[in-house]
């Protein structure tokens, strides 16, 4: 069965008007997910290998140049050392990250480096990270990244529209971005750390999904507060409710501050418990991360050798 992209819906204010999110309850659930579920030994290895295939390996620095982006792409294609892959029985199975994620000007480099590999190129766009440039400029940025070969576009929403409850305007902007992206998949970044309340997070999630986002993503990585489990929980539950209501499955991408294998597993437990197993695939779940990969490698090496490796033993990103 081919996966059908979320086409979005018409704008339905009544779907978001009576959304309630109980903050302390959400925090309780988020705080216990990592204590209610765990995976060990071979199962942990399986989950960590899966986690690698879910990573959008990311570099979003002002000083990015082709040389470090090339290094990133090489790592995305070969994220795990050959000897480790062999020991876990995956030497004949190509494991790659899902995508690399870069700024627009590095898209050509990434496209070139990743040609022929399954790793996709994602570009952050629309005046990332603040999203406050003129709408037409933001849309043109999307279109030009797609022209350059990006197959996934991570767009930011205007947080002010959420804080001022201008839901219809937010919807119209996301719709326009979806159209600008065309065949490229659209990940809408909510920047939950700047939305003030979990209720706003839920409403913004709904508006982005109605607007046709393929993924909703927590953060740019540039806010003071990036991905958190409570905000993720609220987004995940919105995705579930949207699927129940419309039949369309929307993906989820936590990003920013996810550095350890343990954190990654917690997000996966949360998705598995609240959404279900089918979401733990690259077309419905991504991590926006870079250092995470090294920690996962280190954890895998521990499983293989019985010893924790220093970071210098992993080929750097």
């Amino acid at each position: 069965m081919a996966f059908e992209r979320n086409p979005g819906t018409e704008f339905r204010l009544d779907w978001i008007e009576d959304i309630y999110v109980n903050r302390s309850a959400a925090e309780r659930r988020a705080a216990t997910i990592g204590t209610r579920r765990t995976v060990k030994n071979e199962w942990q290895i399986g989950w960590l290998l899966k986690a690698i295939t879910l990573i959008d390996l990311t570099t979003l620095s002002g000083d990015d140049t082709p040389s470090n982006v090339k290094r990133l792409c090489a790592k995305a294609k070969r994220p795990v050392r050959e000897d480790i892959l062999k020991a876990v029985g995956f030497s004949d199975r190509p494991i790659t990250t899902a995508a690399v994620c870069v700024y627009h000007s590095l898209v050509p480099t990434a496209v070139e480096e990743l040609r022929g590999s399954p790793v996709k190129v994602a570009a952050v766009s629309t005046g990332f990270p603040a999203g406050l440039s003129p709408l037409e400029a933001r849309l043109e940025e999307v279109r030009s990244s797609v022209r350059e070969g990006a197959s996934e576009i991570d767009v930011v929403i205007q947080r002010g529209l959420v804080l001022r409850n201008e839901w219809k305007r937010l919807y119209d902007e996301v719709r326009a971005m979806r159209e600008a992206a065309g065949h490229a998949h659209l990940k809408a970044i909510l920047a939950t750390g700047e939305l003030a309340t979990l209720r706003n997070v839920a409403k913004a999630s709904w508006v982005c999904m109605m607007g046709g986002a393929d993924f909703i993503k927590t953060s740019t990585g540039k806010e003071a507060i990036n991905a958190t489990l409570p905000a993720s929980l609220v987004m995940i539950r919105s995705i579930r409710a949207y699927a129940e209501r419309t039949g369309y499955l929307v993906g989820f991408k936590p990003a920013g501050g996810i550095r350890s294998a343990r954190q990654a597993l917690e997000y996966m437990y949360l998705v598995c418990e609240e959404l279900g197993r089918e979401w733990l695939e690259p077309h419905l779940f991504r991590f926006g991360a870079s250092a995470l990969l090294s920690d996962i490698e280190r954890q895998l090496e521990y499983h293989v050798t019985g010893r924790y490796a220093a970071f210098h033993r992993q080929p750097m990103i």
Partner: protein
Amino acid sequence: MEGSASKQGLRTDIIARAFENMEYGPAPESEARAMAWLDAHKRRFGHFIDGRWVEGSVHFVTRSPARGTVLAEVPQGTEADIDLAVQAARKALPKWQVLGGHARARYLYALARAIQKHHRLFAVLESLDNGKPIRESRDIDVPLVIRHFHHHAGWAPLIEREFPDWVPVGVVGQIIPWNFPLLMLAWKIAPALATGNTVVLKPAEFTPLTALLFAEICKEINLPPGVVNIVTGDGRTGAALVRHPGVSKIAFTGSTEVGRIIREATAGSGKKLSLELGGKSPFIVFEDADLDAVVEGVVDAIWFNQGQVCCAGSRILVQESIEQRLLARLRVRMEKLRIGDSLDKAIDIGAIVDQSQLARVVGLVEQGEREGAKRWQPSWACPESGCFYPPTILTNVHPSSTVAQVEIFGPVVVVMAFRTPEEAVALANNTVYGLAASIWTENINLALDIAPKIKAGTIWINCTNVFDAASGFGGYRESGYGREGGKEGLYEYLKPRWMSEAKEIIEEPEVEAEFSSSSFPRDIGLPPIDRTAKLYISGKQVRPDGGYSYPVRGPQGELVGLAALGNRKDIRNAVEAALGAFSSWSRMSAYQRAQILYYIAENLSVRREEFAARLAQMTG
């Protein structure tokens, strides 16, 4: 994964399968240290009376309900055992009382911290003996136990000032249930000791092991003999304790039936009594609640500890307008619950405590169905061996149904609809019990309106099964009386000074009425302030990741203290810290490093005698 030095021989087929189907797989907590502790006692215990182990005559076994295996034998306490224990408690009373609140606080702090030092051992033992998930014993029961002792250690020095016209009751007999064996022990023992009483405690026959480990802790911290006595046994042992004339108060947690018997037995005897009994607590969901929060609330209300919780939210009262939506979401959630061995770290529901309790749950659900209730259980199956019952929802239940009235004490919740807030209150109060209630709404006005209208000792708003030592817990109606926790809980272990019999038990209480440092009895002496030796990693004193300690002994085998038992994660953290510090340390000039070494020497020199004494103590 402690002690797993090499991981060669990975089963790659399992890895491949886990990668495909993303199943959780087994995640067992190690039981090795708990088993070693049982083995050290040759799997056969005595009573703990007057600070020593007393052999029993007849023994019975305690089992792991998740596995059906025998864990150990414990003695059936006789009237003579109870008498011995009460005599010991009486003998200990005068010295314990004259010691004063400050010294008692030190003992209580020492108990709290000793439990902390062994917290994983307590948690594993509790889960083995009771069947509850290790997550709960590790993250909820044992932390609450520690908190309870800390809280009451804080109270102990304040008793004379805060309760000037009250005196301790004397020897307290305490009988506790099997659902929270160690937590109920803490709820009983901590306030009794803080207020200057001595105790004889009988743990439940199904779950005596953590109480026996606690007895060992009492020895470890040198609690004066006789202050805490633990006698194991069944209902007959409890009855002997209730009847004993040397006992001034009975504190009981358990079933309403037994509570009633105890009340009859103590009536007219002058014994003070507190009872914490059954419940059928309402879980009230209004239409403006956050339904996802409610669903997790139900999980915490009725599937926490397999529903074997006296304050379990076992009656869901839901506004009719959202009943079907809530039920649909609950069913989805229930499919995700995991049941299994109590030491698996990734389960939600463990084993029912005993076959007899399981039979009771099965019987009541069958009766409910005969009366018209519809049963819903998730599609997955329970483990075939062991004492398990799946999470269950009963609908088409009415106030007239048996299952809406009696306490099932299992993972079974009944659902009834209401139309208006008034009807919700009426249904909530339509019970012989009154232990707790929870209210779910996003409307604070509604919550504040409904909460005081419900006859229950505890009302939770948008949460459930939340406990704290500072908040009194107890019931209305047939849920019993008396409170545990908070200042209100202390009155259960005190009586007005004017009561004449106080003179019999309390020797010269007036001496201690004035609290001052000069009132410390010098001949008994203050117990030392308990110290926790931690690990030193990255400039911080940290507790060991594994939660275990080991004894450090002197040349004659005497206990010098407890040291933290580091595991591979502690080592990893320490190595990481050392690696992190290496570059800055090595870049320092030799002169700077010399200055720091000199600074260490300077401080060592100040504590020269302490180090010398410690070395002498350890090496002779």
